[in-house]
C-alpha cells in the first residue's frame, strides 16, 4: 500500500476560490498520510518541503494538487516516488470564478468546494491504486539501422546515421546507388544561391557512401520480410525481383473472408484461403535463422514517375510522340541536346502544361505539387541552355508553387528572356501540320485566349510514392506487410500528421523523402536527416524501455492477464501500430518496443485484462467511484468527462486560462486517448449514480487529429454499443455522448460542456442513483 502525500498549491487564486483546510481534511480522510498546503509549491522551498516529508515519513506517492499536469513536469523528481498531478488551478479556481456580489455566491461556492474536494478524492484514490511503472528494457538491442532505398534520401539518411556513430546498411533494388538523382541532367538547387540550376549532387553522395566504413551497401536487393520489433528486427533480404519463402504473408482482405454469397467463411475455410494465398511463404511468426539484425528502419523508397494511361488526356494529345511527360523530357535532356521525338528536329519551343483540367478544373496533375512546378521551370531552362539564341519555353500554369526559398528559383528562371510564363487553362493541343503542335490556352493573363506553336508539349505529371502499389517494407506483422490506411493518404506511407513528421503507423520504421510526400532533392535530404535521428531515437528508446513519440517519457507497458483472454482479437485488430501479433489460437503476442502506450488495446478488451500499472480499469474505475454523489439533491447532478489529454484537455486548460467557465457539476478525468476508454468505466459511472458521461476526443475522419490515429473514432463506435446497453436499462442513451474538440477550440469547449449538462438536467437524475 502506497504511503501518500497530498500537497495543495494555494497560489494563483486557488486559496481564494476554495477552502484549502477543507481539502486537506478530505485528503486525510481519503487516506493521505501527509496533507499540506503551500503558497509557492513549485518553488525550491516547496520542493524541499516535499523532499523532507518523503525522507521523514517514507512517502511513496505524491499528489501535487494545483497546476495543470501539463506544467512543471520536471521540478519534482524523486527516484522511487510516484508523482501525480491534479490541475485544480485550471479546472476549479480559474474556470469557476465567483463574483462576490453575486446573490447566489454562497451556493455557488458550495458547488465549487465540492468540485475541488472530488478532485482531491480522485487524486488520492489514483495513488492508492496506481503502481510505479517499471521500464521494460530490451536486453542488448541491435543498433544497426536499415535504410531501404539508395537514392538521395536513402544515401543522406545513411550518411547521417553513420556520422552519428551507428552502423547502417542500404538496401537498393536496382544495380546502382543514386536513384532518380542520377537520371537527371541538372537539378533544383540545394542551398543558396537558389536562382539557377545546379549539377546533380548524387555522385558526390555516392563517393561519400563508398568511403564511409560504417555503411554497407547491398544493391540489386529487396526486402523479403521484416520480422520483429524496434531494437530486434530480423530482416530477410533477397535478390531483387525474385520470390522467397521469407516473403511476408498477406492477410485476407474483408472481401476474401466472404464466400460467393457474401457470407463470412468459417475459421477453417478462412485458413484454407489464407494458405492458398500465401503458398510457398512461411508464417509471419516464423523466425528466419539467417535474417540480418537491425534496430530500426528508414524507408526511403522514393517515387515512380506517373505516366498517364493510353487514351487519357485526349485534349492534350497524350499519345502523340511530341507530347511527353516531365520524366520523359528529363530523359531526353539527359541523353543530349534536345531533339524532337517525332523527327529528330531541334526542339526550339516547348510548352509546359501544369494543369490538365482545362476550364473545368484548375488542379495540377495527380501527385503533382510544388516540385512539379519547379521541375517545369528547371526543364524550361534546358531549352534555353540548348538554344540560347532562339529557344522559347512557355510555362502554362494554374498555380505557380515555389514555396520558401524556392521563390528565388522562380525569380532566377523568370529572368530568362526566353522563358514565358502565364496563368491559363490549356484547353487543346493539336498537330499544327508543320510537324509540331498548337497549344490553345484560355483565360490567360494576357487577357485573351492564345494559341502557341511549339515543337513539344511537356505534361507536369506527378510523383507516385513507391508505397502506392506495393508494401515495400514487407512486414511480417499480424496486420499485414504494408502500412495501414494507405488509401486514406493516397499511398503515401506517412501518417500524414503535421505534428509527427517521419512517423509511420509502424513504430521503428521512419519514412523520408518522396515516399512521404512529393519533395525536392533539398527537402528530401533534410527529411532524411530527420528520419535518421528518429531511427536512432527508436533504438535508444528500446534500450531504455520507454515509449517513442508522443509519450516519450512513458516507461510503462500494458500488462496482459492471459489466463482470462478469450482470443477475441479485438486488441490485435485495433492496435493502431500493429504492436500485437498473435499465435495460432489468436492469443495476443505483445511487442513492447512497437507499443506507443495509447491504451487502445485496454479500451478494446471486453475482458478487462489489459492495463498499465498506473492507468488501468481499476485505477480509473476507482477514481470514478470516489466521486461523492449526493442522491437527494436534484441541484447537484454529477457527470464524468473523459477528456483526451492531447487535445481536449489542453483546450480546457486554455479556456480556464482565458477566464472562461463552465458548469461545476461534471468531474473531468484526463485519458491518454479516447481509444483507451473501456466501456467498463461508463458502466462504473452510471452504476455509481452519475447522471451522464461526456467524452471529449479529437477530430476523426479523413483529416483526423488523433495522436493515436483512430482513438476517438473507435470510442465513437464503442459508445454506439454502450447506448444499446443503457437503453436496455431503461435510461436515455443520450446520457453518454462523444464530442470532437480540436486543441484550438478552447472557446467552444465550455459551451459544449454546458450544453451537455443542460441536456442531462433536462432528463433528470439517473434513476439508479442511490442503489
Amino acid at each position, binding site marked *: 500500500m502506497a504511503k501518500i502525500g497530498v500537497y495543495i498549491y494555494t497560489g494563483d487564486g486557488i486559496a481564494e476560490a476554495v477552502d484549502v483546510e477543507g481539502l486537506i481534511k478530505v485528503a486525510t480522510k481519503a487516506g493521505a498520510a501527509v496533507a499540506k498546503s503551500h503558497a509557492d509549491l513549485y518553488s525550491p522551498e516547496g520542493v524541499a518541503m516535499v523532499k523532507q516529508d518523503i525522507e521523514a515519513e517514507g512517502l511513496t506517492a505524491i499528489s501535487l494538487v494545483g497546476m495543470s499536469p501539463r506544467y512543471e513536469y520536471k521540478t519534482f523528481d524523486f527516484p522511487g516516488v510516484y508523482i501525480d498531478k491534479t490541475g485544480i488551478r485550471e479546472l476549479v479556481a480559474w474556470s469557476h470564478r465567483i463574483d462576490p456580489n453575486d446573490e447566489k455566491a454562497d451556493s455557488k461556492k458550495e458547488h465549487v468546494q465540492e468540485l475541488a474536494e472530488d478532485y482531491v478524492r480522485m487524486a488520492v484514490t489514483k495513488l492508492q491504486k496506481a503502481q510505479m511503472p517499471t521500464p521494460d528494457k530490451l536486453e542488448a538491442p541491435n543498433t544497426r539501422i536499415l535504410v531501404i532505398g539508395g537514392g538521395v534520401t536513402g544515401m543522406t539518411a545513411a550518411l547521417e546515421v553513420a556520422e552519428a556513430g551507428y552502423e547502417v546498411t542500404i538496401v537498393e533494388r536496382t544495380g546502382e546507388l543514386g536513384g532518380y538523382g542520377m537520371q537527371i541532367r541538372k537539378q533544383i538547387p540545394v542551398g543558396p544561391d537558389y536562382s539557377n540550376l545546379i549539377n546533380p549532387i548524387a555522385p558526390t553522395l555516392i563517393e561519400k557512401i563508398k568511403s564511409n566504413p560504417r555503411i554497407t551497401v547491398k544493391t540489386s536487393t529487396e526486402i523479403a520480410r521484416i520480422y520483429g520489433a524496434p531494437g530486434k528486427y530480423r530482416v530477410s533480404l533477397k535478390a531483387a525481383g525474385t520470390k522467397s519463402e521469407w516473403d511476408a504473408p498477406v492477410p485476407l482482405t474483408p472481401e476474401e473472408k466472404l464466400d460467393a454469397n457474401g457470407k463470412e467463411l468459417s475459421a477453417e475455410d478462412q485458413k484454407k484461403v489464407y494458405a492458398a494465398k500465401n503458398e510457398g511463404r512461411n508464417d509471419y511468426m516464423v523466425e528466419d535463422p539467417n535474417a540480418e539484425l537491425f534496430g530500426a528502419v528508414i524507408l526511403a523508397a522514393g517515387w515512380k514517375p506517373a505516366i498517364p494511361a493510353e487514351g487519357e488526356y485526349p485534349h492534350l494529345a497524350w499519345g502523340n510522340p511530341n507530347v511527353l511527360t516531365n520524366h520523359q523530357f528529363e530523359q531526353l535532356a539527359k541523353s543530349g541536346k534536345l531533339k524532337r521525338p517525332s523527327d529528330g528536329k531541334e526542339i526550339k519551343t516547348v510548352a509546359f502544361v501544369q494543369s490538365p483540367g482545362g476550364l473545368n478544373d484548375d488542379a495540377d496533375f495527380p501527385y503533382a505539387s510544388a516540385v512539379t512546378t519547379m521541375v517545369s521551370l528547371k526543364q524550361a531552362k534546358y531549352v534555353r541552355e540548348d538554344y540560347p539564341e532562339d529557344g522559347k519555353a512557355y510555362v502554362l500554369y494554374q498555380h505557380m508553387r515555389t514555396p520558401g526559398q524556392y521563390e528565388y528559383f522562380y*525569380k532566377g528562371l523568370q529572368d*530568362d528572356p526566353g522563358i*514565358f510564363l502565364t496563368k491559363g487553362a490549356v484547353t487543346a493541343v493539336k498537330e499544327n501540320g508543320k510537324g509540331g503542335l498548337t497549344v490553345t490556352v484560355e483565360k490567360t*493573363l*494576357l487577357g485573351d485566349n492564345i494559341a502557341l506553336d511549339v515543337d513539344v508539349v511537356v505534361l507536369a505529371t506527378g510523383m507516385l510514392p513507391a508505397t502506392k502499389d506495393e508494401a515495400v517494407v514487407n512486414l511480417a506483422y499480424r496486420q499485414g506487410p504494408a502500412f495501414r490506411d494507405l488509401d486514406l493518404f493516397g499511398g503515401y506511407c506517412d501518417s500524414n500528421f503535421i505534428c509527427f513528421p517521419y512517423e509511420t503507423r509502424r513504430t521503428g520504421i521512419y519514412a523520408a523523402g518522396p515516399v512521404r510526400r512529393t519533395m525536392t532533392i533539398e527537402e528530401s535530404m533534410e527529411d532524411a536527416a530527420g528520419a535518421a535521428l528518429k531511427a536512432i531515437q527508436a533504438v535508444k528508446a528500446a534500450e531504455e524501455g520507454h515509449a517513442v513519440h508522443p509519450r516519450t517519457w512513458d516507461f510503462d507497458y500494458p500488462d496482459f492477464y492471459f489466463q482470462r483472454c478469450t482470443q477475441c482479437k479485438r486488441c490485435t485488430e485495433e492496435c493502431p501500430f500493429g504492436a500485437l501479433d498473435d499465435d495460432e489460437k489468436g492469443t495476443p503476442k505483445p511487442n513492447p518496443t512497437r507499443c506507443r502506450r495509447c491504451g487502445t488495446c485496454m479500451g478494446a478488451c471486453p475482458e478487462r485484462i489489459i492495463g498499465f500499472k498506473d492507468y488501468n480499469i481499476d485505477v480509473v474505475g476507482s477514481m470514478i467511484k470516489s466521486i461523492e454523489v449526493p442522491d437527494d439533491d436534484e441541484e447537484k447532478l454529477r457527470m464524468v468527462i473523459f477528456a483526451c489529454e492531447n487535445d481536449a484537455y489542453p483546450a480546457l486548460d486554455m479556456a480556464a486560462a482565458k477566464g472562461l467557465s463552465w458548469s461545476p457539476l461534471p468531474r473531468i478525468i484526463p485519458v491518454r486517448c479516447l481509444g483507451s476508454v473501456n466501456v467498463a468505466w461508463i458502466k462504473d459511472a452510471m452504476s455509481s449514480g452519475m447522471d451522464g458521461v461526456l467524452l471529449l476526443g479529437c477530430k476523426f475522419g479523413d483529416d483526423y487529429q488523433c495522436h493515436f490515429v483512430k482513438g476517438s473514432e473507435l470510442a465513437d463506435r464503442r459508445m454506439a454499443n454502450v447506448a444499446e446497453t443503457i437503453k436496455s436499462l431503461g435510461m436515455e442513451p443520450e446520457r453518454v455522448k462523444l464530442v470532437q474538440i480540436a486543441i484550438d477550440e478552447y472557446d467552444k469547449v465550455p459551451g459544449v460542456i454546458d450544453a451537455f449538462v443542460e441536456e442531462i438536467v433536462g432528463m433528470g437524475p439517473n434513476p439508479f442513483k442511490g442503489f
Partner: protein
Amino acid sequence: MGEQQQMQPDLSFVKGVMASGGETVKKCYQCATCSVVCPLSTNDSPFPRKEMLWTQWGLAGRVSGDVDVWLCHQCGDCTKHCPRDARPGDVLAAIRINAIRYYAKPKALADVFNSPGGVVGAVIAAAVLVLIVAAVWSQVTGNAFPFPLNHEGKVEYHEFLSVIPIDAMVLPIVAWIIYVSYNGVSRFWNDISKGAGLPESFTGTYPKPSIGLLLSKYLGPAVMEILSHSRFKKCGQTAERARGHLLLLWSFIILFAVTNYVFIAEDLFHAALGLISKVTPLPLYHPVKLAANVGGIMLIAGILMVKSMRTQKTEEGVLTSAAPDWVLIWLIFAVGATGIGAEVLRLINIAPIAYPVYVLHLATIIVLFLSLPYGKFGHLIYRTTAYVFQRWADDVKAGKAGFGLEKAVGASH
C-alpha cells in the same frame, strides 16, 4: 472556345528592351501594384502592368500599338512600390527608346544617336561639314579663312558663314527630319489606332482627324497641357523633374522664336528679298537679342536642373538612366554652352577660339535636331502625338468624333 490569337513571341524584342535599360522586365509577376500606384494611369486603360507582361512575352506589335507607353513620364512611383524590383518605370523608358528606333528610318541612325560615341562622331562629322562649307564659302566671298574679321577688325560670324550657305546646309537637313518624323508619326498613329481598337475600314486604314479638326479641337488642348506640364507635375516620386523640364521647354520655344525672327528678317527679307538692310549681329539691347540671351540662359539652367534631378532620382533609386538619357542631356547642354560661348567670345573678340566654338555650336544644333526622329529627343514628337491621340481616340470611342459615329462636331460642318 472563344476567339484565340496566335502568339509569336519575339525574343529579340525582349532582349532589345532588356539591353536598353529594361533588364528588369522579366521580374514582373503581375501583381499590378504599379498600375494602382501610377498617378498618370487611367481607369479605362491602366498601365504599366500590361506593358510589362506584353514585353515579357515579346509582343512587339502590341507594345508598339500602345499609346499608354507615351503617357508615362517615368515618375518612378511604380518602380518605388514594385515588390519584385521589376522597375516598370525604367522598362517603359526602355520601351520608348525601342519604339523610337522602331519608327526611325534608317534604323542604323537610331543606334548612332542613342550612343555617346555615335553622337560625338556625329558632332565631329557635322563640324567637318560646317568647316568645308565655310571654306568653300570663303572662296566665294574672298574672306579670310578660318578666322575672318569684319571691317572693324572684330569677330563676326557672318564673315565666316552667311545665311546663304547656312540655309543651304540646314534646310535639306530640316526637310529630312520632317520627312522621317512625319513617316514615323503616321505609322505610330496607325499602330496606336489599331491598338486602341478604333474602327478599322475595309481597306485596313484607321480614322484620322482632318487637319482642321486636329488643330482646332485636339492639338490646342494637348499643347496647352504640355506647355503647363500639368500631367508631368502629377508624378509622385519625381514631380520635381517637371520644373527643370518646363524651363527647358520654354527656352526651346523662345530660342525657336528668335531663330525664326532671324531667319525671316535676315535670310528672307534681307538676303533673299533685299527688302531691308542687314540685321545681324543684333545689338545687345535689341529685344530679340535680349530674348535670345534669356532663352540661352534658361536652356542652360533648365538642362542643369534636369541633369541634377535625374542624378538625384537615380541615386534615390526611383529611376535608372540609360545612355540615351545622358546623350540628350549633354547634347542640349553642349548646344547652350557653345551658343553662349560663341557670343561671349565674339564680344571679347578672340577669333582663334570664337570660330571653333561657333562651328561646334552649329554642329551640335544640327546633331540635336537630326536626332529628333532617332534619339530620345523624339519624345517631343511622339509624346505630343500621344497626347493628341488620346483626346481624339476618347472622342471616337465615345462616338463624338465623326465617321458616322460623330454627332456634335459633324453637325457644325
